[in-house]
């Protein structure tokens, strides 16, 4: 077995890979949160539950309707995004002018309902979802074995994150979005339909969670609490990165996944707490977050 300075490289790279996979999901979820926060100034507490919903939809599509992974990858994010649009239009908009804490509490309630409903229907032990035929197997690299599906997760989530970043930072639609973040009243005065943009943005941010859910179904067990466990870590990541920039959210998500993976190798006892510890250090040294804009 390959070792370097007494470090088992096979194990180290294995944990790094796991870290990158987790980081991909962190990045997708915190990206969704950051987009929604940018325009609506709210934190969607149901983001984790919608990620769970994405995974369950993929499982249900396969087992009840025979819809395969690739089709699910396309349709499930749209379905979850549509649920997000309904949420925004009928539940969040009526309280848009109240204190933002109410919208946080509302989405928390929705998260409880979704999680409770799926626990009731499917139990809490978790279901398994097979890796699609095309992505089975893997490749032996010099220091590690790389399963194809895991490589696919990393590549696909980086493409989606980069595409989202490009859309927001470089296109005209993204310019509307950023203008809406800066000054919605002025944008409305220019004749742009701001409420529509808000609704679509919410749908898109939530759709990202649905996409992450489908991607996660074959690697994690599909269970009702998969979202809430993930979401609290993502909240810590959001605090670390600050929600000021889209690129920052993506980088922090991936980076924290890697940090977690490294900790799992060097000091496994701390692997569940390391991200929270990093958050504490960031709060002490740079309270606005690594990429934060506020004072």
């Amino acid at each position: 077995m390959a070792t370097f300075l007494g470090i088992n490289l096979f194990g180290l790279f294995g944990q790094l890979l796991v870290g990158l996979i987790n980081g991909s999901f962190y990045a997708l979820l915190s990206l969704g949160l950051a987009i929604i926060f940018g325009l609506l100034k709210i934190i969607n507490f149901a983001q984790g539950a919608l990620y769970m919903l994405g995974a369950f939809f993929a499982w249900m599509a396969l087992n009840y309707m025979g819809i395969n992974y690739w089709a699910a990858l396309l349709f499930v994010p749209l379905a979850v995004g549509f649920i997000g649009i309904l949420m925004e239009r009928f539940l969040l908009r009526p309280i848009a002018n109240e204190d933002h804490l109410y919208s946080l509490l509302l989405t928390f309630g929705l998260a409880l309902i979704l999680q409770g409903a799926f626990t009731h229907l499917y139990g809490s032990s978790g279901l398994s979802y097979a890796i699609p035929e095309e992505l089975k197997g893997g490749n032996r690299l010099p220091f590690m074995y790389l399963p194809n599906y895991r490589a696919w997760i990393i590549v696909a989530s980086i493409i989606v994150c980069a595409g989202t970043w490009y859309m927001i930072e470089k296109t005209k639609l993204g310019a509307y979005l950023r203008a809406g973040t800066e000054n919605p009243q002025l944008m409305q005065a220019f004749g742009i339909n701001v409420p529509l943009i808000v609704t679509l943005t919410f749908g898109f941010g939530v759709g990202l969670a649905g996409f992450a859910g489908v991607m996660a179904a074959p690697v994690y067990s599909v269970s009702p609490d998969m979202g809430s466990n993930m979401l609290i870590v993502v909240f810590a990541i959001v605090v670390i990165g600050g929600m000021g920039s889209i690129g920052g959210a993506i980088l922090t998500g991936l980076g924290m996944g890697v940090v977690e993976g490294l900790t799992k190798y060097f000091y496994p006892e701390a692997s569940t707490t390391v991200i929270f510890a990093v958050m504490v250090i960031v709060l002490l040294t740079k309270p606005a977050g690594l990429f934060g804009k506020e004072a």
Partner: protein
Amino acid sequence: MTINKSAVALVALGLVAPFILYPVFVMKVLCFALFACAFNLLLGYVGLLSFGHAAFLGTGGYITGYMMMEAGLTPELGILCGTAAAATLGAVYGKLAVKREGIYFAMVTLALSQLAFFVYLQAPFTGGEDGMQGVPRGHLFGLIDLSDNMNMYYFVFAIFLFGFWVVNRTIHSPFGQILKAIRENEPRAISLGYNVNDYKWAAFVISSALAGLAGSTKTLVFQLASLTDAHWHMSGEVVLMTLLGGMGTIFGPIVGAGAVVTIQNYLSGGELGNYIHIIMGLIFVVCVLAFRSGIVGEFNKFMKKNFS
């Protein structure tokens, strides 16, 4: 009704309650009512939404349990240790959390409480998933046997009244007035020369100490300290109690805690037990959409409109 009349009614109700209802049930309500009052001090009077108060409830419970079982302390000392531990944790967490505002404050407190949760999950003394079972109730001051439910009840009721008094005293003190000023207009409070973060921190410490007191007492009542108390669900529950009862009202958290504990007891007995989280979630949604003042808030509005 004035505050004083209501308070007298509350004491009278508390004194006779164990003769009408099952004492352990009323004790459970009192523990959660104290927890919710502590939480309401932050949310209702400083405008800070802490999503991590379970950490303090859990810490109080675990430390009291440990002190009673391993160090063989008397109950009042055990509770004192638990409360002090929660206050210390609150002092540390508070220092970190007040660095951020609004939604970030909620996320920071949630993440910090999850940190505590994982520590308690792995630490050897907590008993992990099983929790600490069979915590002795002991003899109060070495004299009064608390294994008797009636003795225990009046001890819990006294603790509750003490906590309730502390919250009220804080709200109506000059310190409390400054907290309200911070809630209403933080920049103005800063411009008047108040060090806002210090005030927020002090309120956070008081609130976490009282949450710890509630957790310590709860451990003695049920002779059990478990991970449930430190789980984020518990943080959500206390938010729900306060919201349902009426945030920023003095009696709201008590009414809310009574309502939520009653609903939970009722549901967990029947076949609706599986729906408990769905129903809690629905109450959240309904409260936020249509019922933001809560039970006591709506009642006060109604009284003001019709009887004054």
